[in-house]
């Protein structure tokens, strides 16, 4: 399976940031070699991985001279370097791209924190045989609801978060929305029609479906 490519992605199929970068690679039809890092065994906290990312987190990405960690940095660079003419997930115009960058920061600072709490309680804890903490879940759901109200208002004016085209700002939401759709938090999305339609759109992107298949094949 290992194609020899100058592009290497070191990561884990259990890691949302790794999945985000995979979506980006597939969106741009880039060939790459996936090097699995064993998170459970703590491989990311030891050398040689630590010499690639001193913060000990997946993913790490190498493309010739370009060596990066932090998924949003990887994705911002990749989408600019490999933007397909007429199908870019970014804008060359700095005013339009600033709006994309703005909504990447929204995903980062407003969406992800309550979402990661919910995933931790509702998905990861049960996997370890632990019970979700009701108060934590309620608190995170309340926070997320306020964020999703902003998204609903935004998506009633625009087809996607930054503009009328799909961009990396939308793409960054995929793994965490996918995870939440399998939990009680799904209701927060279903009850907001524009948000719900946007979720269905982005989850149906062929590039994302390839990522999901990659995960499923690994678990088989």
């Amino acid at each position, binding site marked *: 399976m290992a194609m020899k490519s100058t592009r290497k992605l070191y990561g884990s199929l259990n890691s949302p940031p790794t999945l985000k970068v995979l979506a980006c690679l597939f969106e741009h039809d880039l060939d790459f070699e996936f090097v699995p890092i064993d998170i459970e065994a703590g491989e990311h906290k030891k050398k040689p991985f630590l010499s690639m990312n001193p913060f000990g987190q997946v993913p790490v990405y190498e493309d010739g001279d370009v060596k990066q*960690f*932090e998924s949003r*940095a990887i994705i911002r*660079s990749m989408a600019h370097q490999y933007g397909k003419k007429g199908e870019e997930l970014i804008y060359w115009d700095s005013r339009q791209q*600033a709006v994309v*960058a703005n909504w990447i920061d929204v995903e980062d600072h407003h969406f992800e924190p309550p979402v990661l709490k919910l995933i931790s309680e509702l998905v990861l804890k049960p996997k370890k045989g632990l019970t979700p903490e009701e108060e934590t879940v309620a608190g995170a759901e309340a926070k997320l609801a306020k964020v999703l109200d902003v998204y609903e208002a935004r998506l009633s004016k625009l087809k996607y978060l930054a503009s009328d085209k799909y961009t990396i700002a939308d793409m960054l939401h995929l793994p965490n929305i996918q995870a939440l759709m399998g939990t009680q938090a799904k209701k927060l999305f279903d009850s907001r029609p524009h948000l719900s339609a946007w979720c269905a759109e982005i989850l149906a992107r062929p590039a994302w479906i390839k990522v999901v298949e990659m995960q499923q094949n690994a678990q088989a």
Partner: protein
Amino acid sequence: MTIKLYGAAMSTCTARVLACLHETGAEFELVPVNLLNGEHKQPAFLAKNPFGQIPALEDGDLTLFESRSMSTYVAEKFKGSGGDLLRAQNLKEAALVKTWMEVESQQFSPAISPIFYQFYIVPMQGGSPNQAIIDENSEKLGKVLDVYEKKLGSTKYLAGDFYSLADLHHLSYIYYLMKTPSAKLINERPHVKAWWEDISSRPAFEKVASGLILGEK
């Protein structure tokens, strides 16, 4: 066309954008937002930032919020005349700037913000700093700064031997940290300390620093 920055000069996130505006020599107007009166939660401001936080930026019909995307826009718009904070002409360097900008946002900021909050915001609200929170986050910040110490031992600035937006994004929070007992986190690390002294003595930042008056009587 003059850029309008809505915020407060003493606020860390507003100052992040101010540092970039001064560094690039951009023409701008700082429009104060009255936080005490809850102006940031009123419809006029919510139309600029639906999350009700300062700062926000207007440049003609472009409206932005989230300080880091604002400063990136400014750096991009005024590149050339205003320096090269993004290194866009060099693929490898541009990628490193993006990486270390994310490091500030994902690793550094979550550790320093709670310390800043305890020393500066809690007393404003009539409370006392919670030492347990300060200690816990000082340990986290120390680990992040250990990585910085090693990096800054091999390059002059974070992304390489060039000053970039990645360094600039740290200015306002570290400035405030240096006035607290937690300054030792910086002072105990010689490369980090030298880096801090370098970036904080840039003339553009000195213009911003004079507005960073939180905690002053």
